[in-house]
């Protein structure tokens, strides 16, 4: 089993974009993943981005360099975070998904609109206080 430790950087929303630009300049050329976690009890939504440095070439052992996880916390009330699509175009759909499912706005995104939920759907389902409207059924506890 190999170590999966990623360098972790926590940053304020105000410094997010410049930090991301700096990291990109340092060689982190691929956004592996961008998602969010709803910490309802603390009143924040944490946006988590995973960045990797990839090198073109034929040697698979040389392809991956640095790995960094960047975390930012935005207020749950009106969450808004600069879009990193100008830096990594691949962030496009990831940010759309975070908008759709968590309600985080990304000013600077070229085309921010829903991606998973159907047209006309209201609400941000992955939030902890999203009301689940599916009919409830008796759940048997997982016991032995």
């Amino acid at each position, binding site marked *: 089993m190999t170590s*999966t430790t990623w360098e972790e950087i926590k940053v304020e929303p105000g410094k997010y974009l410049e930090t991301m630009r700096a990291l990109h300049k340092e060689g982190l050329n691929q956004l592996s*993943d961008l998602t969010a976690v709803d910490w309802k009890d603390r009143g924040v939504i944490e946006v988590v981005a995973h960045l990797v440095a*990839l090198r*073109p070439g034929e040697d698979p052992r040389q392809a991956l360099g640095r790995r960094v996880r960047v975390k930012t916390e935005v207020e749950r009330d009106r*969450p808004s975070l600069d879009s990193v699509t100008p830096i990594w175009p691949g962030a496009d759909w990831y940010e759309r998904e975070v908008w759709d499912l968590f309600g985080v706005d990304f000013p600077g995104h070229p085309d921010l*609109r829903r991606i998973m*939920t159907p047209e006309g759907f209201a609400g941000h389902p992955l939030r902890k206080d*999203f009301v689940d409207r599916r009919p409830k059924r008796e759940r048997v506890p997982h016991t032995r």
Partner: protein
Amino acid sequence: MAELNDLRLATGGEKPELRDVVTKDVGEEEILVSMGPQHPATHGVLRVVLKLSGETIVDAYPDIGYLHRGVEKIAEGWTYPQFVPMTDRLDYVAAMSNELAYVLAVERLMNIEVPPRAAYIRVIMAELQRIASHLVWLGAFGTDMGAVTLFLYCFREREKIIELFEMASGARLTYSYMRIGGVRNDLPDGFVEKARDFVKLMRQRLKEYDDLFTGNRIFEARTKGIGPLTAEQAIALSATGPTLRGSGVAYDVRRAEPYLIYDQLDFEVPVGKNGDTYDRYLCRMKEMRESLKIIEQCLDALPGGEVMAKVPKVIKPPAGEVYSLTEAPRGALGVYLVSDGSANPYRLHWRAPTFANLQIVRETTRGFKIADAVAVIGSVDIVLGEVDR
């Protein structure tokens, strides 16, 4: 009941819908055609709105979400072991790879090491699954372009793999075979022999597919130079797997961050040069050969022993998080798991490789014909189950 759930925020006002975006700048000689969501060549419920000038694509807007089942939300209400069968249903063409990605993430969070026999069995299953998945891709790819014979051949071979999976796990497509700590049961008698026979057969058959397809002039005309993607573009668009390797970047998680016993195995990672559809095709063909090598090495070195580690009855990982990557047939499959110390995940995010890979469709089809869009979408190897979750 909409008002109950209207948590939509006032930031920036209502966001546009797809129709607002695509109908905005349609030129006089342009038309909008909706390809999908029901379409034989979009491999699942994918919709691509094409803005066409004659037969040339001016722009392409992939529209996803038709298979969104809220899997990540469901995970928050289930226990960790309960989620294993759900992973089968995400990328339903490569279920073993999904299960492996998930159980590895939980094991990393809990610092559980699986017994060696389980590790070898997992690698055998993962590589058999890679071949089965590539066979589905190959068959569908050929069919999209009119070469229907290939579909028949691929599924004939894939049936042998499915039979092996059925022997071991009882199911043909959704196995629930991998568990947190190992695998559910040991390999049955006869599995190893049958697997060896399959490897011999598959080598022969791969040669047949090559004779039929690679080098075929019509096939080359439809794939060479189509949908080119440079290495920089592919990296910037978060592409991974053969979609990225076809463009000349040898990023394969099995070599970059080896897991299980991949660091002890001898195999190559095929890399393309031009990033066109043909190179992505070649990458997958070569990957099937390399997977056969891996399976053989594992069958030869298969140790005895337990197939399940000692794990607590109730799986409660310590509070913390992990981002665990594995190389699924479609690319780097990541599981971002946040635990709050309870028996249910606080947040489970599935980094599906195809979700990011699908973004290249817009970039690579501009200027090409509709038929080329079909080839490009086929070469990305999409499975909507993992895109939409």
